[in-house]
């Protein structure tokens, strides 16, 4: 089973005026992205804010319709899905969001929160549901009695465990993790990362982990995709991308990561400038105004996507 995006695009209209809204342009949040995740795999998607990684996650979760391109699930076009297929898709693709304080309904008991993704048409009896909820709560390291409590009775780390329990209650194949540990304290972060890794091995889950934290992404992912201004600039095996990054942006991103020890303070490659305005992205390669290795053709021609070594792709004129 595979989740695959081919040439995915998501443009948001920008209008001005309150009543007679005039179209001023399009924000190309995701602009022709090819991505695939196989069963049991963990794909990390890293990039800075505005790179389109969260919009991509929303496309996967069917929270946004793609402007163009197709999303394939098990080789079938999601757009053409019947109600029944859609229900199956939603059961197989679940999500964990960044902030466990806003992603859990404060007025619902934990048991009801966790059971909510279970579709009513499955006709599960209350006893079965209760048992299933208890089972997943224990899988994420909470006590089964937690089901009777409300979210405010839990700490941030425990709330994220509840969110993970809710994601695995339907026995999904894929989980979209949108910055799963960014809102947590350092000591809790390690607990949740270990939990996610353990669950992946135990339940044969595939992860799509959206993150701006390169270290956390490396810890969990087997493959890595780097996004910049709505485009994928590099994809490859996690170790390859980290040890031999191809695209200058990936190199800068890794170089900007903070050192682990004061003796590793090195001359870091500091990128000038900022992430471009998505309403009016630069011509050619979108990274060229900040790129230390920009060449004349970078301003005019968009680089093509090519395989530089086995399984390691980039879009850059240097290769």
């Amino acid at each position, binding site marked *: 089973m595979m989740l695959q995006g081919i040439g995915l695009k998501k443009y948001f209209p920008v209008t001005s005026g309150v009543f007679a809204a005039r179209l001023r342009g399009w924000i190309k949040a995701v602009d022709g992205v090819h991505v695939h995740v196989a069963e049991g795999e963990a794909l990390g998607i890293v990039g800075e804010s505005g790179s389109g990684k969260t919009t991509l996650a929303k496309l996967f979760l069917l929270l946004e319709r793609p402007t163009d391109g197709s999303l394939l699930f098990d080789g079938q076009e999601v757009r053409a899905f019947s109600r029944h297929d859609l229900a199956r898709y939603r059961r197989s693709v679940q999500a964990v969001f960044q902030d466990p304080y806003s992603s859990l309904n404060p007025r619902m008991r934990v048991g009801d929160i966790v059971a909510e993704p279970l579709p009513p048409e499955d006709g599960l009896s209350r006893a079965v549901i209760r048992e299933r909820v208890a089972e997943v709560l224990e899988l994420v390291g909470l006590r089964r009695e937690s089901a009777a409590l409300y979210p405010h009775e839990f700490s941030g780390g425990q709330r994220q465990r509840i969110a993970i329990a809710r994601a695995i209650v339907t026995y999904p194949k894929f989980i979209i993790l949108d910055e799963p540990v960014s809102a947590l304290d*350092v000591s809790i972060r*390690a607990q949740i990362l270990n939990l996610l890794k353990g669950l992946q091995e135990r339940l044969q889950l595939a992860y799509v982990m959206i993150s701006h934290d390169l270290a956390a992404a490396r810890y969990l992912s087997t493959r890595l995709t780097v996004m910049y201004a709505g485009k994928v600039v590099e994809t490859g095996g996690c170790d390859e991308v980290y040890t031999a990054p191809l695209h200058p942006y990936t190199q800068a991103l890794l170089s900007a*990561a*903070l050192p682990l020890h*004061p*003796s590793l303070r090195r001359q*870091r490659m500091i990128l000038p400038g900022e992430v471009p305005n998505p309403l009016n992205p630069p011509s050619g390669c979108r990274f060229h105004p900040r790129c230390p290795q920009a060449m004349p053709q970078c301003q005019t021609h968009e680089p093509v996507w090519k395989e530089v070594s086995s399984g390691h792709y980039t879009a850059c004129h240097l290769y």
Partner: protein
Amino acid sequence: MPESSPLLEVEELRTHFFTRRGVIKAVDGVSFTLHAGETLALVGESGSGKSVTCLSLVRLVPEPAGRIVGGRVVFAGEDLLRKTAAEMRWVRGKQIAMVLQDPMTSLNPALTIGTQVAEVVRLHQGLRGPSLRNRILEALRRLRIPAAEARLGHYPHQLSGGMRQRVSSAIAMSCAPRLLIADEPTTSLDVTIQAQYLQLLKEVQAQSGVAIILVTHDFGIVAANADRVAVMYAGQIVEMGSTVQVFDTPSHPYTQALLRCLPSVELKRQQLVEIGGQPPDLAQLPPGCPFAPRCAKRQPICLEAYPPTVTIQPGHVAQCYAAVPIDA
């Protein structure tokens, strides 16, 4: 480390919050010193008391719930805790400046950048007219804000997050303070922008000799920018030393665990060491070491009495029964 008298000496600072649930000892006996030109990082998780420590230094603890109940804060030879509210207003902004986490909330959305920088400069330096304008532009340019003149008329929402943080730093540095308190200044910034900002902070410090208290929860920022580091847990400094000392020979089990539970870009997928349990409830602290319930090296005595301060090496201390000095 310079031998001259320190710029800032904090002794046994205690800030408590009096709530219906009881007395919350947010800061409970914090002592440290800071010299001019030095960067001290205060590291800890949320609720460890690092932000309240900073607010106590400038006497901005939210009253009436919070009160500084003890200790001394000696800044340039004067005890700030004995100053009147009016005197403190002249210290804040001029002598001690702050940069907060989220520039979108620390800048006024309804005023232009120029007005906001001018406010501080006019108040503390009494400048008017062209000299005021020049000082503002100089402040913005020092933080490498491109097209500074055009920015004067802009509002905060017209700037990016990184640029907003530079503007609030420019305001902080505009009166040439002797101490800059930066409370999680890069938490809301992207990785590459964070790298830009941290580099800039170092350059500004090298030029002006300002002392910096850098509050963070990220050991990577400590490794990148700090000269010394103080690790806080449950309102106390559990370990303090030079950055190299603390990274090389972390001596408090909490520091050791924190350093081990960091995922890293350099390291492969190995199991992260986790710290079990939750941070303690500050209203109901156990009698002994507050970290004892989560500590892997717990001994019976840890639950009974607060551990002594052990000097590991000159300039490196840890509050733990298990800490052992290193023979030179």
